């Protein structure tokens, strides 16, 4: 396998694809949104439970490729316990990392750094950002639908 392919499909990504964390619908969510990538048909629903301005619980359901599933899974882990403002900053940091003009890694992204390799795969960037667009929609106008287009 070539190096950049290994960079894309790192163990962490394969693991989160196979056993996505927080993969469940949330009955008592305060915020939720659907995300859709019309190019490939990937679908995701992201749920958020807020408490005192903090994302107390974050979960998702949906169907998609390894990149979108792992990205969603890692995102839910990272966003738990963050404020809305911090979540927004992480969204920006993640987007810059995978699609910004120059390679950059936001310090707070933690394990999500494994997705940095996506920037070498232009056709797959939207797979990685789908869940993030969706959580942003959930926070800004819950009940809405996010699209990568």
């Amino acid at each position, binding site marked *: 396998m070539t190096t950049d392919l290994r960079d894309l499909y790192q163990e962490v990504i394969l693991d989160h694809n196979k056993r996505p964390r927080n993969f469940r619908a949330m009955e008592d969510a305060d915020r939720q949104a659907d995300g859709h990538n019309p190019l*490939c048909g990937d679908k995701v629903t992201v749920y958020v439970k807020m408490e005192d301005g903090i994302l107390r619980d974050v979960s998702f359901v949906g169907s998609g490729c390894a990149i979108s599933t792992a990205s969603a899974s890692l995102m839910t882990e990272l966003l738990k316990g963050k404020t809305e403002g911090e979540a927004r900053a992480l969204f920006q940091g993640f987007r810059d990392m995978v699609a910004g003009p120059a390679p950059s890694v936001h310090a707070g992204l933690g394990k999500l750094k494994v997705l940095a390799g996506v920037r070498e795969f232009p056709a797959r960037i939207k797979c990685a950002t789908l869940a993030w667009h969706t959580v942003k929609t959930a926070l800004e106008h819950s009940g809405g639908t996010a699209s990568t287009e």
Partner: protein
Amino acid sequence: MKRGNELFAVSGDPTPPDMARRRSDFPILKQRVHGKPLVYLDNASTTQKPRSVIEAITRYYETGNANVHRGVHVMSERATQAYEEARSKVARFLHARDDREIIFVRGATEAINLVAQTFGRTRLGSGDEVLITAMEHHSNIVPWQMLREQTGAVMKVAPVTDAGELDLAEYARLLNRRTRLVSVTHVSNALGTVNPVREMIEMAHLRDIPVLVDGAQAAPHMKVDVQSLDCDFYAFSGHKTYGPTGIGVLYGKAALLDAMPPYQGGGDMILQVSFEKTLYNAIPYKFEAGTPDIAGAIGLGVAIEYLEEIGMDAIAAHEHELLAYATEAVRGVPGIRIVGTAREKAGVLSFVLDGAHPHDIGTILDHEGIAIRAGHHCAMPLMERLGLPATARASFGLYNTREEVDALVGAIKKVREMFS
């Protein structure tokens, strides 16, 4: 149509030399992708172009460029002659009765839209029905939905079986006194299913219902005879038929075309224009407003000559053999499932793999130099029917080889290892 097992007896043999020789006619196939030889298995999306087509287009622009049907100068006469010769080649390719039955359009999509907006708008009123199938490409769904909004016409859909075959009994039941048109794909782009269009046309004609056949996936792969089929319209795309992008064909029976209003207005489609009244030109020009894609038509004509030189039967046999070989070979991959197992199939192998999404398969295969399509194949209702968000699809062309199928199977096994 040949099936897998009888052919697999010769699986050890390489691709016959006469077809393998054809590869060198395609300059693009020489390149490497991610350091690997390019294995192009996305022919249902678009085919590569033989050198003769590329050279014909270059030659036209270097030595023959002029507008058609206009000038009295020699350049315009030459361009007109080359353009009309291309029309004759298409007519011969489809076995049409008359060159006037060949309309140049941008592709199969525009051909279907043309029929919807001319035939459809004048012949389908509120409650009248157009009958399609559940395996249509979006280009044979959306134009009818647009017509539905414009006229109140109704779109009926004949179902498909789990194997991806048309339910012919249900199709027969859906033909009724309100049906004004049947519009059906000859070959499914997503599954490779070959529809029994001859039988479907006969059944429709018993009720005097005209039939449009979307031949985008058939014309490059098998002999098409519109007179023998007795279809009323036939559409195909140049770029899937080893010709250039931007050019395609609508065949229509002359009597139907004569009775249809024009599609777009402009130059070339008129006889006489005043501000009070305009007289439309005769067919086919009535449907070719504006300067056409002259180079595209010439390129398509050369592509057709190339195919005829090899022979459509030889191409069909080669692709069936590859499909049978590939179908048998992937059976050895654990966790793979072929999607679309119709008895009659053209060279399309759609599949899903346990634990690996088609997009991941596509990316990993790409890094092995193998180009396939991953996704819904512009047939989302069909995917919905089959309960799948997407499939991976390898589709064969005349230049593909057994060695390339072996590379495909090897790469699928790598995906399998990674995701298991």
